[in-house]
């Protein structure tokens, strides 16, 4: 309305600088405005306010809404999957209230397994959660149905829901998107990921190159043909070059690893040593750095000088070579199995310090047999090797080595994919009962691993000190409540 616009313009400038002059097209309104403006008993400001109030009122009284034929909204496609039950829906609402989203992933997994979808009104909440926590995205996409797909198109924050062709992402995506794609492809086929990387390598900057090499690191040990990776060692960027060396060190057949292995082979041997005044003999592993040391090993990261009092410079070179050589090579050279070799490293004092290098190489080359052998025979718990083993195997060792390693073992057990056994859960309950004041987030981290059946045994545990009974009681109640909720969620999808 033109008159109202005049009022707003005048109001911005003020009556002092711009006295109000207004002429309304409606004669009745104009007459009323004139009456106010002729009133000399009030000041300019009051006259302005009265005219403004009149025009504002006039505008509101003749309220007419906007009309537009074109403005429209596409209709969401019909769902092809069933909605989850009302009970499951209610439990999702309860789950979304829980601390640390404790059962959100479980709920989504069950919903997705059953090929069901969430009710429309909950979609914004779960899409927002997925936008904030990428790990939820795949399952949220599976449970959001056609309505979710439709809704995501209306919110720029929820674009994660659209799958763009891999090729398009690789060619035009952001660095984060491309890195994610490369990581996904390398999980399925590392050679394909390398092919993709090769296509655009020359156009990438050093930062992107480093990021992409990082993306394939997890699966690099399974790369068969290392020629391309070896080829990029001539890169100008030190950052990229170092990253390439780092990756090559993880591939058993790479020239770097083979070179280290060759030096190590010349430096390690099995010897017979006389004991009991020469009446008997025993086998020992002798480690002596070869004189035939190629200078090139120092250009790929082997340090010449020891930074530890425990090792001489020579011993430190050996330590590093052991660390980067597949442990299975030792079996071949010494014609001994993993168990026997580890026995030597445990019992033979002069080579004991090298045991931790073997732990590192076992981890670097994902050697399950060596991980098993080390955990089984060593007095020290190398918890970092546990994830290489099956959950069943991990649980056996966790129970055996639990005493004195409670924190590390429980922390490792959170990552198990399956539920714990009741027996292992009892160790956890015992730990929390005896340390009720330090549980912190323990129960929330563990609850997805704790089986519902353990609800029967929780009352068997109690703290050592009577004054801790209250806290333990609360913790126990919280565990029971969470287990009940978890069980209800599971049942709601049965």
């Amino acid at each position: 309305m033109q008159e109202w616009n005049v009022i707003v313009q005048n109001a911005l400038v003020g009556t002092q600088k711009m006295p109000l002059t207004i002429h309304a097209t409606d004669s009745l309104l104009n007459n009323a405005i004139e009456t106010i403006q002729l009133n000399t008993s009030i000041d300019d400001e009051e006259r302005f306010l009265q005219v403004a109030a009149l025009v504002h009122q006039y505008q509101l009284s003749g309220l007419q809404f906007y009309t537009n034929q074109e403005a429209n909204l596409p209709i969401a496609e019909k769902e092809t999957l069933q909605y989850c039950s009302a009970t499951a829906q209610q439990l999702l609402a309860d789950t979304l209230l829980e601390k640390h989203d404790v059962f959100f992933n479980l709920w989504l997994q069950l919903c997705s397994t059953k090929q069901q979808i969430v009710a429309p009104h909950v979609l914004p909440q779960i899409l927002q959660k997925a936008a904030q926590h990428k790990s939820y995205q795949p399952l949220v996409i599976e449970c959001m149905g056609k309505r979710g797909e439709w809704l995501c198109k209306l919110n720029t924050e929820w674009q994660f829901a659209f799958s763009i062709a891999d090729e398009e992402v690789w060619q035009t995506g952001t660095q984060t998107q491309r890195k994610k794609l490369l990581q996904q492809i390398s999980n399925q086929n590392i050679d394909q990921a390398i092919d993709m990387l090769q296509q655009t390598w020359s156009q990438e900057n050093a930062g992107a190159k480093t990021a992409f090499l990082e993306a394939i690191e997890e699966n690099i040990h399974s790369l068969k043909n290392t020629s391309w990776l070896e080829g990029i060692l001539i890169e100008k960027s030190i950052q990229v070059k170092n990253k390439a060396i780092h990756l090559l060190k993880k591939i058993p057949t790479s020239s770097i690893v083979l070179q280290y292995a060759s030096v190590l082979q010349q430096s390690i041997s099995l010897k017979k040593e006389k004991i009991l005044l020469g009446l008997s003999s025993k086998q020992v592993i002798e480690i002596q750095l070869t004189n035939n040391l190629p200078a090139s090993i120092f250009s790929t990261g082997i340090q010449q000088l020891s930074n530890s009092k425990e090792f001489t410079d020579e011993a430190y070179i050996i330590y590093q070579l052991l660390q980067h050589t597949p442990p299975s090579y030792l079996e071949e050279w010494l014609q001994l199995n993993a168990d026997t070799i580890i026995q030597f490293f445990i019992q033979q004092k002069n080579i004991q310090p090298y045991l931790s290098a073997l732990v590192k190489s076992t981890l670097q080359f994902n050697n399950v047999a060596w991980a098993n052998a080390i955990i089984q025979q060593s007095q020290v718990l190398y918890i970092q090797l546990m994830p290489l083993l099956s959950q069943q195997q991990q649980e056996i060792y966790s129970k055996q080595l639990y005493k004195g390693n409670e924190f590390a073992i429980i922390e490792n057990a959170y990552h198990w994919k399956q539920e714990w056994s009741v027996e292992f859960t009892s160790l956890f309950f015992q730990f929390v009962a005896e340390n009720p004041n330090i549980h912190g987030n323990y129960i929330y981290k563990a609850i997805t691993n704790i089986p519902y059946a353990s609800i029967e045994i929780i009352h068997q545990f109690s703290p050592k000190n009577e004054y801790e009974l209250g806290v333990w009681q609360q913790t126990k109640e919280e565990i029971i409540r969470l287990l009940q909720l978890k069980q209800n969620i599971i049942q709601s999808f049965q």
Partner: protein
Amino acid sequence: MQFSEEQIWALAPDEASKKAGKDLAHPEKWISKGANDVAIWGECKGSGSKPYETQIHVETITFKCSCPSRKFPCKHSIGLLVLFVKNKSFFTDLHPPKWVTDWLNKKAEQTTKKVEQKDKPVDEFAQAKRLQAREQLVENGIDELLLWIKDVVKNGIVSMPENGTSILHHLAKRMVDAKSQGLASILKKMAVIDYYSEGWEEKFLSQLIHLYLTISGFKNKTHINELLLEDVRSNIGFTIAQEQLKTKQGITDNWMVIGKQTIHDDDMVIEKNWLYGCSTKQYALIIQFSVRWQINSLLLMPGSCVHATLVYYPSAWPLRAIIKEQFALVETPKPIGFNNWNEVSSVINNNRAMMPLTIEIPFIIHQVLPVFYQNTWWLKDETHTMVRMPNNFTALYTLLAISGGQAIDVSVVGNGDIFQPIGVWLHHQFFSL
């Protein structure tokens, strides 16, 4: 007692209490449980040596618990009430123990004292003197406010973004001192306008005019319509005692709760319940004020329908009301609202002549489609007429998700230009927004 479980959960002060309450809504958690027509009580085993004594007065829904929690109602009260609603058969004890009877007697004594106080003869002279003093204070306050309004008009509102909102906060405080809480609220609203967004000038000017009209109405009280004067007085902050209102005749109907809005103002929680009379087709607004953690005396759940008698506050466009008598929850019928925006604008235009002051008005409108046009979301009816939704409408995506691109029935609140959806129906199911 006809509360649903959901309504009781709505009483919980926070999510933690809700969760803890859920856990306590199991019979094994309670050493003793009892109930009669007046109260519900139970003893809950806590971490201390003595069990917590929890009691609920049925008629007034007031709680008392011996636990040390500062939250109100505590998890024990919530848990006990839910357990009672879920299964009354657990509450076998009909005779209240001493700790319950003591509490009930004390409550009865307090009620008697209140009645006695009410029955005391009113000192009309003193009352008139108090009113006169208040009116004088208000007049002084609005003179000061008018001076500021004129000053703004004289110098122009263009400097508002630059000058900041401290003056508005200062004036709001001055109005509180001048017993003009209503004017203070308008000033606080002006202080939260985004002065760096497009269209702030119109928003500010509309509120300035609203303030001016209220002040002018009060200054010209002898010349304006009696009902409009009540609106002016209410806008300033004069209140009418609910007891006085309850003596008036009300309107009995099945009132559907078509939306709830909760506003936090410092420590005060303002709960607006928008109602729709299923037979009378009248709309009403029940406002409840409470301090954080304090329980509201009325439990109105969005989507539910309550058979009750309402009394409207005197107004040129009556909307605000109180519940004089509440009978029972009834089955929720399909609401009958307006078929298009032109019907809505016709009602607004007809009433505008009687009500020049800005008020929020609720409507139910059938079959509108949310559409995005010119960077704004609108609600479009089948005649292609559309109204804007507010830019900061937080439940927009819930509305869109429920709609799925199909026209839907919604309840909205607005002042004539912009309408905010507060509820939506999908296959007869109501969703609060």
